[in-house]
């Protein structure tokens, strides 16, 4: 559906994207992740021709985006819906008119039915005649989604779609996006700096830093077996206790975590303290994460035990090493 190879983009002499390559399959939810200024949004805008690029290729639905112009480019853009962090709705228009806008531009038929179907889909049918300025952030993003879907696109581009929303609203928007992905077989490319979003929705991801690819692969692999760059990005919020070795354990649903960890203590006859633990959602799956500290002298035996039992883990850098 989307193939990007060796993409380079610069503003003047400053190169903002260096040699980016990835591809997105039909029906997939693909995440482009990174800190602010990493070039994520610029990369997204290269996909639908809002930003030109200098070298490499961006092929969307079989067409090289950089070579399209005028009507051809606009017809491609029609197939690529886009939603934005700040919603970008027309403040003077009501909900209905905002959603109808793309349809009016393209002279579509049966606009009224289409708009009402879309408003039903995003749960705003009863707000059709309200001014968008009177809506909450989550409702505005729902209008944005309805508008992006108006022209029946095959691909939906999301630029930090949930970054301006509170966690609960953000969560409902993510559910909506997941529903749309399944029910409409829509390919979604999400740009975000929120790891929660990626874990929850994306099947694969591209991690960008300073315009360079630092990680690319399936979300599960990258989170369970993180490369050092990835580890930097997903650093835990737990305070690591100095002294001893801190280990981050991952438990797929199939492993009963209670017994594993207590059995380990019994088998090895060693103590450990629990630093923290949580459940994380990766797509439809739930993983347990447990962070423990073991005394230095037992670290090797614990690692050996974990290796033998095929439990994914990482040793976290301790505070002493940092200092």
């Amino acid at each position, binding site marked *: 559906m989307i193939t990007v190879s060796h993409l380079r983009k610069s503003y003047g002499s400053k190169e903002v994207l260096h040699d980016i390559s990835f591809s997105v399959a039909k029906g997939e939810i693909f995440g482009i992740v990174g800190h602010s200024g990493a070039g994520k949004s610029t990369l997204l805008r290269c996909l639908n021709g809002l930003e030109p690029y200098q070298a490499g290729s961006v092929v969307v639905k079989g067409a090289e985006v950089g070579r399209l112009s005028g009507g051809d480019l606009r017809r491609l853009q029609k197939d690529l819906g886009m939603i934005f962090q*700040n919603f970008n709705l027309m403040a003077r228009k009501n909900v209905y008119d905002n959603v109808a*806008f793309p349809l009016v531009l393209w002279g579509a038929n049966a606009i009224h039915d289409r708009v009402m179907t879309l408003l039903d889909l995003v749960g705003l049918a009863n707000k059709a005649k309200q001014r968008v300025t009177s809506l909450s952030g989550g409702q505005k993003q729902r209008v944005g989604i309805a508008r992006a879907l108006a022209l029946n696109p095959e691909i939906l581009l999301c630029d930090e779609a949930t970054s301006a929303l509170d966690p609960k609203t953000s969560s409902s928007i993510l559910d909506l996006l997941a529903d749309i992905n399944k029910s409409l077989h829509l390919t979604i490319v999400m740009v975000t700096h929120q790891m929660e979003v990626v874990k929850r929705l994306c099947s694969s991801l591209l991690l960008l830093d300073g315009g360079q690819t630092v990680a690319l692969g399936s979300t599960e692999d990258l989170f369970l077996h993180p490369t050092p760059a990835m580890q930097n990005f997903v650093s835990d919020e737990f305070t690591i206790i100095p002294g001893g070795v801190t280990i981050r354990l991952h438990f797929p649903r199939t492993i009963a975590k209670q017994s594993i960890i207590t059995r380990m203590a019994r088998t090895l006859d060693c103590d450990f303290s629990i630093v923290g633990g949580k459940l994380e959602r990766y797509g439809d799956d739930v993983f347990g994460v447990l962070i423990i500290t073991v005394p230095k002298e037992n670290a090797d035996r614990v690692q050996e035990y974990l290796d033998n039992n095929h439990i994914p883990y990482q040793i976290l850098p301790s505070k002493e090493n940092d200092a």
Partner: protein
Amino acid sequence: MPDFLTPLWTRFCDKFPEILEATLETLSMVCFSTLFSMLIGTLLAIWMIITNPIGLNPKPGVYRVLDFVVNLLRSFPFIILLIAIIPFTRFVVGTSIGSAAAIVPLTVAAAPLVARLIETCFLEVDRGVIEAARSFGASTWQIIVRVLLPEALPAIVLNVAVIAITLLGYSAMAGTVGGGGLGDLAVRYGYNRFQVDIMVYSVIILCIMVLCIQGICNFLYKVLR
């Protein structure tokens, strides 16, 4: 009525037809020059927002020329412009005297100001909304007609008041060199013939016009917003 007012009242009644005529002349000068300068200025502003380096289809070279011309025309003192373009005025309306002739220099003076003000209104439109329109394949003209103009409309309406009131002031100047209107009346009677009361009437009417223009535009702004 107190005795001292009687002669004033008599003279007001006496001069009423002239005052009315001057009022209508001023109104027609202001209305037509506002209309024409809005049309020409808006077209210029559209051209500028397209070619602006941060515009819809940047053409920095073209923009620099437009920008320079607008600045140049705006830097002319109106009274000089009025005289300098007399040949052009003759060419357009066939004469350089009268209210109709005054509309030409008034329009020429106001159009660049309109262009600048409306360009600013366009620049104030949320860039994100424009980007959203582009993201679903709107053409440049669709963006101008369906996004920029409607979104900027309330701000444009407020600027119409600025333009119309500026033109009301200019029209008094145009009046003194043969354009007629209230400014001309005030100068002829009040200054040249020491009939201060007639000048006061003219000024009162001008004040009322300013208040009405601003009031109407403020009202429209509230409705449109």
